[in-house]
């Protein structure tokens, strides 16, 4: 039997095969959408760049060489050099690590937090719902960047505090989605069946409600990744994110602002990096939305 036949088997013979088959179907459906493939490739390139930055970057990201300052893009310095003579290409490559760290940590902190709060509020309803959602609404009503600014100002500038600040400001949207989904699921008969078998609220929420919320959550998180990158870049731009000499893309744009009229490449190159990665996440998120939508379940 070929691997493909095994994956698509109509009657899987083990738990593992059933789940692998489902993952394979999602994957092939994703491959049929050219834009999401493009997004996936961009994210893959970002991952590889971050992983192999020391080998890819031709120069040190922080090594200064004042005799080489503000050189235009050339065969040696592919993206030119900045005001301290550092190679911009190397800095962009190393910056991918910072961007990826921010994106991953924000997703890992805010998505589970939002999911859990939303699911608990939706499942229990009543005063639990009122308190949790009131809390969520307070966070939602504050502008994201301003709130992140306030947090960073309180915690002190730096990449870790920027991550915390962005995570703290992005969970409420996830909590709202998770709550809305939970409300439509909680009275379903398959939930009643678990309750009837004696399953407690923890089991119902964690094993039955959350798996149904996660697909829309994954979509939403990938779509939001662009926003996270931009917020991180924004914090870096204002000078409250990554601190020099860290090659964070937003901070690099901020430094290049001074020379934007005469040495356009200093601010433009990291700008391109931000645009491409944001686009990559958006494309991938769009593709995932089409594939993971529970309403299209069974058709794929």
């Amino acid at each position: 039997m070929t691997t493909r036949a095994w994956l698509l088997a109509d009657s899987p013979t083990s738990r593992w095969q059933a789940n692998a088959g489902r993952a394979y179907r999602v994957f092939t459906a994703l491959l049929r959408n050219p834009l999401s493939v493009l997004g996936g490739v961009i994210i893959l390139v970002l991952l590889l760049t971050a992983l192999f930055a020391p080998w890819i970057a031709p120069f040190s990201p922080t090594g200064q060489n004042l005799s080489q300052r503000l050189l235009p893009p050339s065969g040696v310095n592919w993206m030119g050099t900045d005001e301290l003579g550092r190679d911009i290409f190397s800095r962009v490559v190393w910056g991918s690590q910072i961007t990826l760290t921010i994106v991953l940590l924000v997703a890992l902190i805010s998505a589970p937090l939002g999911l859990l709060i939303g699911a608990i509020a939706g499942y229990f309803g009543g005063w639990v719902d009122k308190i949790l959602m009131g809390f969520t609404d307070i966070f939602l009503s504050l502008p994201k960047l301003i709130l992140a600014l306030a947090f960073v100002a309180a915690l002190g500038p730096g990449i870790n505090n920027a991550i915390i600040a962005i995570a703290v400001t992005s969970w409420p949207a996830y909590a709202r989605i998770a709550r809305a989904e939970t409300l439509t699921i909680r009275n379903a008969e398959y939930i009643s069946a678990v309750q009837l078998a004696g399953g407690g609220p923890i089991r119902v929420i964690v094993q039955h409600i959350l798996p149904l919320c996660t697909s829309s959550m994954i979509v939403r998180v990938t779509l939001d990744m662009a926003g996270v990158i931009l917020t991180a870049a924004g914090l870096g731009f204002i000078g409250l994110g990554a601190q020099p000499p860290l090659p964070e893309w937003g901070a690099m744009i901020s430094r290049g602002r001074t020379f934007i009229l005469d040495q356009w490449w200093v601010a433009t190159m990291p700008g391109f990096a931000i645009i491409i990665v944001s686009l990559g996440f958006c494309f991938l998120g769009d593709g995932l939305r089409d594939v993971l939508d529970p309403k299209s379940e069974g058709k794929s």
Partner: protein
Amino acid sequence: MSALTLKNLDISYGDTKVVHGVNLDVPEGESFALVGESGSGKSTILRAIAGLAPEWTGEISVLGTPRTHRVDRNVSRQVQMVFQDPYGSLHPRKTIDSALSEPLAIHGIGNRDERVEAVLKQVGLDQRFRFRFPHQLSGGQRQRVAIARALMLEPKVLLLDEPTSALDVSVQAEILNLLKRLRREQNLTFLMVTHNLPVVSFLCDRLAVMRHGRIVEIADVAQLKQGELREPYSRELLAATAG
């Protein structure tokens, strides 16, 4: 001994009272039907017995012990429920295997593989369905899975909420035969909600006719078959379904 006893049962959803003063006694091993038009409160009674409609007053006893208002683990081993819609009663992301193992996991019962295989055989499903997802099954097969899930904890009483109304006629017959066989093999007590009187005469021993949340009449199936129901409303209902 009585499998189910309801005394002066009132059930409400919020401020609306939907069931008024129901008294009912179902002996062990009997198959009892609740019939009536939509909104007459029949399904609500099942949900209250199962613990899914907690706002009730009066008394509900299961196998002689009064039950509490919440879902309770001891009661779940004695009473299980089969829902009306086989498309809505199975979790879309869980394989048949995990749906059937879940009750065992909750109650810490071992031998899960063997038990799942055994129950699939009981409800007439091939082992190759075990690791499929619900969307890979037909309506009748799903309802068999739902029945299998209800049997996992080896309950004495099965609450059936219109178990065949969402199915094709030919599949309905299969499911009814399955229920009849299971009841005989495992000496189950059935409390079934339906508005299909032929199903009642096929599967049940006695029936209660309900209207506006009250029991109008309790009769033997023999009376139903001979068209000898006492109350005018029951006759009306019988005429309506026969016509």
